[in-house]
């Protein structure tokens, strides 16, 4: 597989904060790659480094086999969809989309024709002569997308592009973005703090924490085999069990709530815990149970039943030994830069 982007020991320091700390990764051509993490984890800075909006403190950015670490944004074969869309308010939708062609000196008729095609691609035909202020949030998003794609970049960077949209629209756009990426065959690097979004759209996901990558994996790999407590808790939700477990040795383990079985009554045994039901959250198709056991709380998620156990009942929790995922230590917080 061809490599689109390669980051080598990439570091970016602001004041005494290591926003991006020795990041190494490879993004393959044609891949839908996500950078996932809480705010302040370095994912957006990493994207801005690739786009050329920040300069790395050390390390290298290789784009399509060429060192691009010091190239200005306009010299990179990369385009960006900004979080706030960054549309030009004084230009029509058509001129916004045609901007990249205008600055390259493409004649007016030609650039308007191609901008019209791009608007068709994002289903905005008929909006050519409106101003950005006359569009809805979802429509602005599409204009930003069309504007970034008109140069036919080999790599598109998307910085939380759906963050400002409401839930319904966001789900529609997720499907459309994914379809667009497939049909154009462009490499997408997608920054988000929404783990559901990252899991549903991506080929691979890098989970960022404190400027470093905690885990880089496929969505299924991240969810099924989280390597650290941070990943286990940030991607989906997890029970963290600690101690010596029969057949698995000593350590910390993640256990997904839906892998926990719950029955009424007390039936102790191996890979079982008896506890008292603290709280029941009825979620429709599923029900979430909070159970107080000795030494902590366990969350269980099960398909909803006709009869729901009342809070206070004694219940027995059980799971398969194979559902327990051993965890390594994660990345500690390192706000101070050692330079």
């Amino acid at each position, binding site marked *: 597989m061809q490599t689109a982007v390669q980051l080598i020991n990439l570091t970016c320091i602001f004041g005494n904060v290591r926003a991006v700390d020795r990041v190494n990764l490879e993004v393959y051509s044609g891949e839908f790659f996500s950078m996932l993490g809480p705010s302040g984890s370095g994912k957006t800075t990493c994207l801005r480094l690739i*786009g050329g909006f920040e300069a790395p403190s050390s390390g290298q950015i290789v784009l399509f086999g060429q060192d691009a670490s010091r190239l200005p944004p306009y010299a990179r074969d990369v385009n960006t969809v900004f979080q706030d869309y960054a549309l030009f*308010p004084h230009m029509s939708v058509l001129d916004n989309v045609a901007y990249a062609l205008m600055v390259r000196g493409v004649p007016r008729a030609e650039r308007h024709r191609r901008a019209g095609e791009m608007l068709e691609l994002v289903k905005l035909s008929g909006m050519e002569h409106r101003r950005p202020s006359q569009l809805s949030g979802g429509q602005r998003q599409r204009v930003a997308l069309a504007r970034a794609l008109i140069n036919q970049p080999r790599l598109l960077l998307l910085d939380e592009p759906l963050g400002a949209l409401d839930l319904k629209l966001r789900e529609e756009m997720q499907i459309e973005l994914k379809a667009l990426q497939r049909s154009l065959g462009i490499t997408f690097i997608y920054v988000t703090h929404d783990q559901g979004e990252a899991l549903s759209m991506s080929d691979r996901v890098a989970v960022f924490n404190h400027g470093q990558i905690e885990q880089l994996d496929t969505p299924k790999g991240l969810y099924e085999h989280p390597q650290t407590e941070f990943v286990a808790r940030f991607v989906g939700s997890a029970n963290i069990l600690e101690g010596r477990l029969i057949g698995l040795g000593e350590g910390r383990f993640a256990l997904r709530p839906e892998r926990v079985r719950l029955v009424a009554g007390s039936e102790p045994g191996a890979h079982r815990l008896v506890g008292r039901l603290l709280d029941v959250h009825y979620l429709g198709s599923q029900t979430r149970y909070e159970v107080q056991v000795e030494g902590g709380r366990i969350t269980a998620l099960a398909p909803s039943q006709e009869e729901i156990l009342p809070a206070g009942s004694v219940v027995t929790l059980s799971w398969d030994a194979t559902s327990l995922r051993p965890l390594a230590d994660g990345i500690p917080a390192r706000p101070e830069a050692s330079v």
Partner: protein
Amino acid sequence: MKAKPSLALRIAAIAGIAFLHFPLLIILLYAFTTEDRTYQFPPPGLTLKWFGVAFARQDMWAALGLSLRVALVATAVALVLGTMVAGAMYRFNFLGKDVVTLSLILPIALPGILTGIALLTTINRLGLEPSFWTIVIGHATFCMVTVYNNVVARFRRLTPSQIEASMDLGADGFQTFRYVILPGIATALLAGGMLAFALSFDEVIVTTFTAGQDKTLPIWFLSELFKPRERPVTNVVAIFVTAVTFVPILLAQRLTQSGEELHGGGKTT
């Protein structure tokens, strides 16, 4: 429903406006008086002859021409320098930034007489002859402040991602300025430029120090007032200048209003 103002407030407001505009009416009235030595009230008679006298005065036209040229050039200099300084202040953080900001605003905050003396001393030191260009330099120091203030305020409203988006789409620095920044700050430039022009056009104190033998219109007015005869001529010229400057002021107001609509709407992007 808006509350109706009380009678006292209305009287106070009307009195305030009258106080501001009464002197203008006096100037208007005495442009037509037949008495040319004293401002006796009421004027003994009304005449239009001073218009002819005033427009025939070569020294008046020369002063008006000089003032216009100085104001235009000083405004142009202020627009370029003020925009550049505003851009630098907006983009960069550096040691002593507050000091630079303060020193920029000083020419307008300091009494004009200090600025004037400072400029005159510098001009003498450098061995320059007071001329058209020394007046322009003097005026540009304070004209720049109005442009800077307007533009820097607008810069703060411009989203940095628009500039980044432009660079991302292949525009170099100059193209980004031409196509993204300039349209964004156009109305601020217009407002700052108008103000700069107005400041320069009626400036007296700094001009007296930097002008040498040349007379700008305000200085011409001053010297006319000390002459015993033909006093209504200054009133005629004042009315003429007021009438002429009214047009661009109204125009600018129109333009900035429609501009605000446009940019205000864009703020949500």
